[in-house]
């Protein structure tokens, strides 16, 4: 077995003994000195999870979150040095924990945190020319293809995800209503903002992202969501910077 394989095995497994061949001053056994690396690895990964999942941590409380985090970091060490991407598997991990079965919405909250972070680091793009769009005759408006901005994220949830986010982050926000909510995250400049989407709007946005025109996306959405309201959807998406110009992509 290679030296680094042996060294690595104990880093995320506190039950393993200190590897052979490591020493302190005067050839003393390394003992606790190896634990410095164990602590650095484990604590730095836990700190990265804390940074990545603020909504999940708010809901669970710091103590509960910090007791789950070591289980995750030992089972799912990062696969890349780009730590801003760490935690992709965290929503699925939360789904497997029996002690969280009463918090069925928590994995979606983790997906919400991931989407917020993804939006923050997404590519820049020139803003959509809303004024030009608004001067178009209605039939031309409906024939337009609207490029979805790289920082826009869509989350579908069976839970009141938007209300849960607001309740946990905005002072005096009302208690979540028992409804399914889709959420759109947009980034007007540097700070991602969550918005509640009307029913069907997530499907409509997906169609646009695949290159459908406003009209074609509308028609396709109506087949699955008869109550889809294009006017209301345009207000929230156009008004909240969901789109960009093609040149900016």
């Amino acid at each position, binding site marked *: 077995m*290679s*030296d*680094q*394989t042996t*060294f*690595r095995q104990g*880093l*995320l497994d506190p039950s393993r003994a200190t590897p052979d*061949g*490591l*020493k*302190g*001053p*005067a*050839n*003393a056994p*390394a*003992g*606790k*000195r*190896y634990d*410095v*690396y164990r602590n*650095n*690895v484990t604590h*730095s*990964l836990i700190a*990265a999870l804390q940074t990545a999942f603020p909504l999940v941590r708010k809901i669970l409380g710091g103590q509960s979150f910090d007791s789950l985090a070591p289980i995750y970091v030992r089972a799912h*060490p*990062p*696969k*890349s*040095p*780009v*730590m*801003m991407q760490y935690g992709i598997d965290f929503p699925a991990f939360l789904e497997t924990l029996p002690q969280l079965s009463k918090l069925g919405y928590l994995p979606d909250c983790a997906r919400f945190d991931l989407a917020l972070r993804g939006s*923050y*680091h*997404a*590519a*820049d793009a020139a803003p959509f020319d809303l004024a030009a769009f608004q001067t178009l005759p209605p039939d031309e408006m409906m024939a337009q293809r609207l490029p979805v901005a*790289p*920082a826009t994220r869509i989350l579908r949830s069976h839970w009141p995800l938007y209300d849960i986010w607001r309740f946990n982050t905005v002072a005096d926000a009302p208690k979540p209503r028992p409804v399914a909510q889709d959420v759109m995250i947009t*980034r007007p400049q*540097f*700070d991602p903002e969550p918005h509640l989407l009307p029913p069907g709007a997530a499907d409509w946005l997906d169609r646009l992202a695949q290159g459908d025109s406003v009209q074609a996306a509308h028609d396709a959405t109506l087949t699955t969501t008869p109550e889809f309201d294009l006017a209301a959807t345009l207000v929230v998406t156009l008004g909240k910077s969901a789109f960009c110009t093609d040149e900016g992509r």
Partner: protein
Amino acid sequence: MLDDERRFDGLPARPGVGYKPQHFSALQADPGPVAWIEVHAENYMGDGGRPHAQLRALSERFALSIHGVGLSIGGETPLDRDHLARLKTLCDWAQPASFSEHLAWSTHGAEYLNDLLPLPYTDATLARVASHIAQVQDVLGRQMLLENPSSYLAFADSTMSETEFLAALVDRTGCGLLLDVNNVFVSATNLDLSAQAYLDAYPLAHVQEFHVGGHDEDHDDTGAPLLIDSHGKHVIDPVWTLLEHALATTGPKPVLVEWDNHVPDWPTLRAQAQRAAKALAT
């Protein structure tokens, strides 16, 4: 993003700071003696947004050092080509005055362990690290600087000292050196060696940048001091003394103050940069 005239000029022989986004406005309003900034490469490997915008704005005014923490140059496995490509993209875009990495490993197989892990100083390690450094310099198209680690333990297998190892790497690869004098102090204390002797043996002629930072104090199983390189405190006086000792030989060089945890307000960090300016003036 910088004009060509500023490419590859090296960092100014003045104080720099490890850049933290919370200091963005204060640093520009009142930089004090700070002439350059250093950023961790991996924090700027997103596709855009605020991190890139801040780096673009700060580059108008401050020389830039890109300091990688995730390349795992000491790893037993081949360098991560995807990561090397990301570094190249970042360096091509940001055109830093300097690129540096660590004498350490952090990736094993498909796992990234998010820490700077130690190496035995042997001929086999030397050959491997030298080949990795050559690969980095080849891909990036520039010289890199290599930083000495903080050590908490030593390897029974080591056949040479860290200073001999670093000197051999410079000979083989033509890389430059980043001398972290806090790491020298931490390692010397932890391994019961002389920091002064380390500096006397170190190939100071190849230093292109210094680091100073704070550390925590603990003890090992026998009660011996065990210093932890935490970058969360003021730089202690003995570390400033070591820096001044090294500067007496090298002449003025870029000196970076690192403060990565429990990040203080800007005036506190600026005061550490002023202390570095004093060391540069003596």
